[in-house]
């Protein structure tokens, strides 16, 4: 009973913050609402008995990725978005239309397929959530784990190289069209 009430509260917060992310004009405010959305998602993970994932969600998404976003927004000194003109009105119309279509489709599909049925009772946990994930991660998913670490090294190298930029700005030669 309390779990359901908490779920509804977190879900309302999540949907509200996500809407503010895409609706607000100032990119910094969008980023901060996204941080709040990630934290409420971490709360929902806790309700799903995924404690390790909830904490990792806060550490990685809310604590590192969004800080990176904020750094870039402040570094580029972005002000309020300017969105006007006919192309934008058309884009808004099409965008919300497609969104509404997707939402109706999702609601019908999920509502009909998995209606309010009984969920399986949870077995008593033998080891903690983190230990259980660790056991699977390092045995069955060892290869993806190692590949992910290679991916991260590639990402670090790539970000450093791309972020450094060129030594001199590229200017087109005179007289070319």
């Amino acid at each position, binding site marked *: 009973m309390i779990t359901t009430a908490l779920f509804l509260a977190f879900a309302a917060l999540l949907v509200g913050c996500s809407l503010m992310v895409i609706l607000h004009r100032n990119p910094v405010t969008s980023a901060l609402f996204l941080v709040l959305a990630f934290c409420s998602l971490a709360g929902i993970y806790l309700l799903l008995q995924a*404690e390790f994932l909830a*904490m990792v969600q806060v550490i990685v998404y809310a604590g590192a990725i969004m800080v990176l976003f904020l*750094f870039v927004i*402040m570094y580029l000194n972005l002000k309020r978005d300017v969105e006007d003109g006919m192309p934008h009105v058309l884009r808004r119309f099409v965008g919300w239309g497609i969104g509404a279509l997707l939402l109706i489709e999702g609601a019908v599909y999920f509502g009909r397929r998995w209606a309010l049925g009984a969920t399986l009772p949870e077995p008593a946990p033998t080891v903690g959530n983190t230990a259980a994930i660790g056991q699977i991660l390092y045995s069955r998913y060892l290869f993806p784990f190692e590949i992910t670490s290679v991916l991260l090294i590639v990402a670090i190298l790539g970000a450093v190289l791309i972020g450094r930029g060129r030594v001199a700005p590229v200017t087109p030669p005179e007289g070319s069209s």
Partner: protein
Amino acid sequence: MSQLAALWSHPDFQFVFWALVKILIILHAMLGVVSYLIYAERKVAGHMQARTGPNRVGPMGLLQPAADVLKLFFKEEFIPDGANKVIFHIAPMLAVIPALVTFSVVPFGPTDAFRVTDINVGLLLFLALSSLGVYSITLGGWSSNNKYALLGGLRSSAQMISYELAMGLSTIGVLLLSGSLSLVDIVHAQEKMWFAVYQPVAFVIFMITAFAETNRAPFDLPEAEAELVAGFHTEYSSMKFGLFFLGEFANVLSICCIATTLFLGGWNGPWLPDSLKFLWFFAKLSVLVFFFIWVRWTYPRLRYDQLMDLGWKVLLPVSILNILVTALVVFWRGQG
């Protein structure tokens, strides 16, 4: 009346009620300790510099924190032109909240009465909250619409996220030895011997990164007076500045609590019965906090590039090596 009795007999309600009582007690106690930490710092700093420190307000200057708070309340509060008002107001609050929430998982004593809760990912919660602590400085610096504040804020957040890595990795050694992320289990695993003895390198790295995380000297370039006016809190006045200040000391206290729990054995100690073991916790906590104050008034400030070099080129590889060595030792001991 009978409804109240029915509500009281509901086990969930009892749990929530006692949790709220414990939260109130621990929060008030820790906030009181934080305000007297400020007094302690000024007294200790004074004696280290061959002077007495505050001794006018009240006996031995003990009412100084009250005088400071009253002064801050009465100062004029102004908001710079062009500042983002909402974020300007929120940033100081974000400085205090993560530090205070950390107190909810710290075990002060052996039984349930001495801690608010014990979650099985307590260590990860502490790391998550220290990650969230970056926002207050970043937003405070940016929302002030001031070049010096922005620079100070960005520098400080870059410093904090760089040292967060080494801090997290240094706690993994403790995790390997105790086998659990729950802070209570970690304290129980130190009943024979403190982890500071088994993991000296990790302890040293944790303390160094603790200084960097709390923006205390010798890593306080972002708020250095001579460098960047006052860094990210240049434009803050009155109680907002007070909140930043309070947040910094609350951060110091919460990191020292975690360091005591992880490395110094928490509430373990001889001679005292279980109900008084929290005195051992506070004794170790005082030693660590005194060490923080001592280091601040002893060492010169690190330059920013020296700071980042230290974090990335020294502390990070050393903490990774520490994990490797600890894992090998634990594995061999498990084999034999």
